[in-house]
């Protein structure tokens, strides 16, 4: 069987899974889980098999639905085109789906109406997978619509809580506005170019912008930005990620907002190729920088585990957008790498939050504490995730953030634009604040004192731990062997984004691009020479072992290590309370970072006012931002 059918089969498997769940899985839990697992395994396997031909051999798969190939230079049928960029995101999607499906088996076992869960889950998965592989703008819109509405359903899945329904409503309103912008943009585009095929659009629009296409660009840009939840469109994301089941929060942050990011990259790099313009770069980087800063500062103020993670998702997407908006090969690699890492570590963190929620029944950081004694494996996974997202070496977050800084500063020094220098500074500061808010979670939920209420909490079951372990390993692995990741995943994807003519030619036939006057931009190889995590890690392990043996384990001249196994409440092993009898006293999340919060009081007050929770306000932000993008486009794009 030829692999060119694989993308379509992968998408269809997921949709068929949804259908079969309705037909066969209504009454049997086993069948439901099996269908979901089987469908995600099959699509994972199919996409994974594409790595060799696409990523390594550099082939681009094009596939015309019903064999409706282009006629006399016009693409009429729906085309699927899987280039390296699309496959890169498709890999993220299928990995997320598979792990989430495994996690869901135990995670939602106590919920009612699980058949709806799996139906929506599989449809969501199928739509996102379709979105990143399609070559047709309108098909992309359809997928976005399916994605939005299934996401709304999943957000409100646990509809016993008021918040879930409210979040679903907000998601619905903002998502619909975003979809409408996209649709409007597509309509304008179709009216102008009489085609919906991306490759053909790209060829027609290359260096050939009219006011109508600029309008279309602005609207589509806004619509996709809404889907990637960058500020100021982030408002429904915070609620949705918080109230959705954690397996779904992971899917949301792992692939749903990546779909938006993918759409934006496709839009500015391939379809319109506007990213070469400094003004577009400024626009995207501005959006990205504001997003990462507001996301992280809002996260610092949260005291709900999942809500905090939600705001971090927003902040990390800011990094991705910023890096991708730099329009350098280093920048795009950094952005894609960070997108991938974000899928891994944020998925891991959401799964940890889910494990905590399942075991303790709450994600409120003020009510948790000391879980590391009861849930050591979850704690370990959480620490890996937290260090990854905070960018501590040698985890993957460090590698990608390091590339982001390098890219941003390279842009700054080569263009001489001090704006990008301050973008770099902001990125570093945001990274430190990310660390701060994860220290907050670490202290509030996993370390500190165990409240009596949580004294007999149980560790998450093995089936939930398995995806967490896999993701932890991936976080460490991609951090250490980042050069391999670059070589096999990032570099082909970046090259695909910069060589537009390949994309067009493969879809529309050889020579089409040349005829339309499309020129490829030379993408230089990024250089990273100074940081070799393998050497570093080897060193670290050697010195760590030596020091650990000397300090902790050796007997002899040193004083003994005494630890209390019996668990006496008082005496030598009690916590020091200035002489008082040790009381259950836990420094919870909202008690931390007092000095910082005091100094930023005014800022937080403004932010609190802006995040009013009223959906009318949020809709207004979307429309206002759309207006800004339109005005910006007409004022500066040339």
């Amino acid at each position, binding site marked *: 069987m030829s692999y060119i059918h694989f993308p379509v089969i992968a998408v269809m498997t997921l949709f068929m899974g949804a259908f079969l769940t309705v037909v066969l899985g209504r009454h049997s839990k086993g069948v439901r889980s099996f269908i979901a697992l089987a469908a995600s395994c099959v699509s994972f396997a199919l996409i994974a098999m594409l790595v060799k031909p696409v990523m390594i051999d550099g082939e681009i798969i094009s596939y015309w639905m019903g064999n409706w190939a282009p006629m006399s230079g016009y693409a009429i049928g729906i085309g699927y085109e899987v280039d390296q960029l699309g496959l890169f995101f498709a890999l993220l999607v299928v990995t997320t789906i598979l792990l989430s499906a495994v996690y869901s088996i135990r995670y939602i076992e106590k919920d009612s109406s699980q058949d709806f869960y799996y139906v929506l889950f599989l449809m969501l998965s199928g739509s996102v997978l379709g979105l990143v592989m399609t070559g047709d703008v309108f098909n992309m819109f359809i997928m976005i619509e399916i994605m939005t509405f299934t996401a709304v359903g999943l957000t409100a899945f646990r509809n016993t809580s008021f918040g879930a329904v409210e979040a679903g409503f907000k998601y619905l309103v903002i998502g619909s506005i975003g979809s409408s912008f996209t649709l409007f943009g597509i309509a304008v585009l179709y009216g102008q170019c009489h085609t919906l095929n991306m490759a053909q659009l790209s060829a027609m629009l290359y260096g050939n912008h009219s006011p109508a296409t600029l309008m279309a660009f602005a609207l589509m840009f806004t619509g996709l930005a809404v889907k990637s939840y960058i500020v100021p469109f982030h408002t429904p994301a915070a609620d949705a990620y918080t109230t959705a089941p954690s397996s779904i929060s992971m899917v949301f942050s792992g692939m749903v907002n990546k779909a938006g990011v993918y759409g934006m990259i496709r839009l500015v790099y391939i379809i319109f190729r506007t990213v070469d313009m400094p003004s577009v770069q400024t626009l995207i980087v501005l959006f990205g920088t504001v997003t990462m800063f507001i996301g992280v500062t809002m996260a610092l103020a949260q005291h709900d585990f999942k809500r905090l993670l939600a705001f971090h998702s927003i902040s990390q997407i800011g990094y991705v957008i910023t890096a991708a908006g730099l329009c350098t090969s280093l920048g795009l690699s950094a952005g894609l790498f960070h997108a991938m890492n974000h899928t891994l570590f944020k998925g891991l963190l959401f799964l940890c939050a889910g494990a905590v929620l399942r075991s303790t029944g709450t994600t409120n950081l003020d009510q948790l504490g*000391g879980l590391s004694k009861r849930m050591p494996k979850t704690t370990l996974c959480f620490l890996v995730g937290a260090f990854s997202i905070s960018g501590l070496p040698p985890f993957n977050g460090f590698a990608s953030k390091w590339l982001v800084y390098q890219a941003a500063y390279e842009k700054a020094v080569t263009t001489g634009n001090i704006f990008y220098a301050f973008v770099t500074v902001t990125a570093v500061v945001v990274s*430190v604040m990310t660390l701060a808010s994860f220290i*907050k979670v670490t202290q509030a939920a996993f370390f500190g004192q165990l409240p009596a209420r949580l004294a007999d909490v149980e560790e998450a079951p093995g089936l939930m731990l398995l995806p967490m372990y896999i993701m932890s390993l991936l976080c460490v692995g991609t951090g250490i062997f980042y050069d391999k990741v670059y070589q096999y995943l990032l570099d082909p994807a970046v090259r695909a984004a910069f060589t537009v003519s390949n994309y067009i030619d493969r879809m529309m036939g050889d020579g089409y691009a040349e005829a339309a006057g499309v020129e490829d931009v030379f993408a230089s190889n990024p250089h990273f020479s*100074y940081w070799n995590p393998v050497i570093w890690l080897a060193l670290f392990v050697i010195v760590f072992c030596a020091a650990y043996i000397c300090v902790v384990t050796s007997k002899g001249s040193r004083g003994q290590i005494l630890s209390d196994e019996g668990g006496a409440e008082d005496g030598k092993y*009690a*916590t020091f309370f200035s002489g008082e009898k040790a009381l259950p006293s836990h420094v919870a999340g909202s008690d931390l970072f007092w000095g910082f919060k005091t100094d930023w009081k005014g800022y937080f007050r403004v932010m609190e006012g802006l995040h009013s929770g009223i959906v009318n306000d949020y809709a207004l932000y979307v429309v206002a931002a759309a207006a800004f993008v339109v005005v910006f486009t007409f004022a500066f794009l040339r």
Partner: protein
Amino acid sequence: MNFSLIGALQILFKILIFPGLLFVVVIGLFLAGIDRKLVARMQKRVGPPLRQPWFDFLKLLGKETIVPHAANKAVYLAAPVIGFTGLVVMALFIPVFGYSTFSGNGDLIVLLYLLTIPAVALIIGGSASGSPYAGIGISREMVTMMSYELPLIIILLSVARKVGGSALCFSLGQIVNWQASNGCLAFHPALIPAMLAMLLVIPAEVGTQPFDVAEAETEICEGPLIEYSGAPLAVFKLNTAMKMFIMTALFTNLFFGGVSTASLIGAGIPAIALDAVIMVLICIVVTFLSMSLIHAITARFKIEHLFKFYWTVVAGLAALSLVLVWFGL
């Protein structure tokens, strides 16, 4: 990499003796002793002997290590060692002027992130001890970290811009080489504000008074270190001393990188030894200016004032430098 016996021994020598573990530990404790002596002298006291940090370290090794009931034992005991390891590894990345363990290494951003490892180790260790005082301590430590990270990155970017011009230059080795031919960065007027800012960043990074809000022993009982005793505490104290050397060495490389003697007497072991001596001397001066002097003449900050101070005064100085450098001064 050549895995011959001599090569392996050389690498081992570099890691364990010079410029790795032993060198950093010895010089770090030496600088800590000098700092204590100088502070005492400025306060009109005799002060402890220069060997005092050694005594403290050895004594703590000989004490019992109590793991409190509320602590997570594994993390609690591993945290100081992780911090120590991070510092030793970092020391390998900081060249002694022209001489570095891994040739061409020393990316500034990597250093910036490696520097957070000891602080994170302290925070995680304190957090794992389960004490509420430690909770307050780690909160302050983290705010301190947020405070100094902003000026530090601006300083590093200014230096990178000055040295690299319109090319990306984050290599410490390259910065040192540039200074060898163009004169020390300390004598370039545009970078003088950055240098002052760096002098103020060092004490916060190391955690000496008046920026030791995290370990304020009189208010929150040593903060994150409250439950530590014995060998792990000894390692934490050692970490502080090593950080002193690493930060001052980083400063020396950034702003006085051009005083290497290799060009005068020719590269070789004598030059490296002489360079090391010069470096330690500069480190002593920097220790005096940035840590001892400020310690002796000021009282401890409040945490919110510390944050404000770093984000306005120090970051302002650094940003001034960045702007000056950017527009070609």
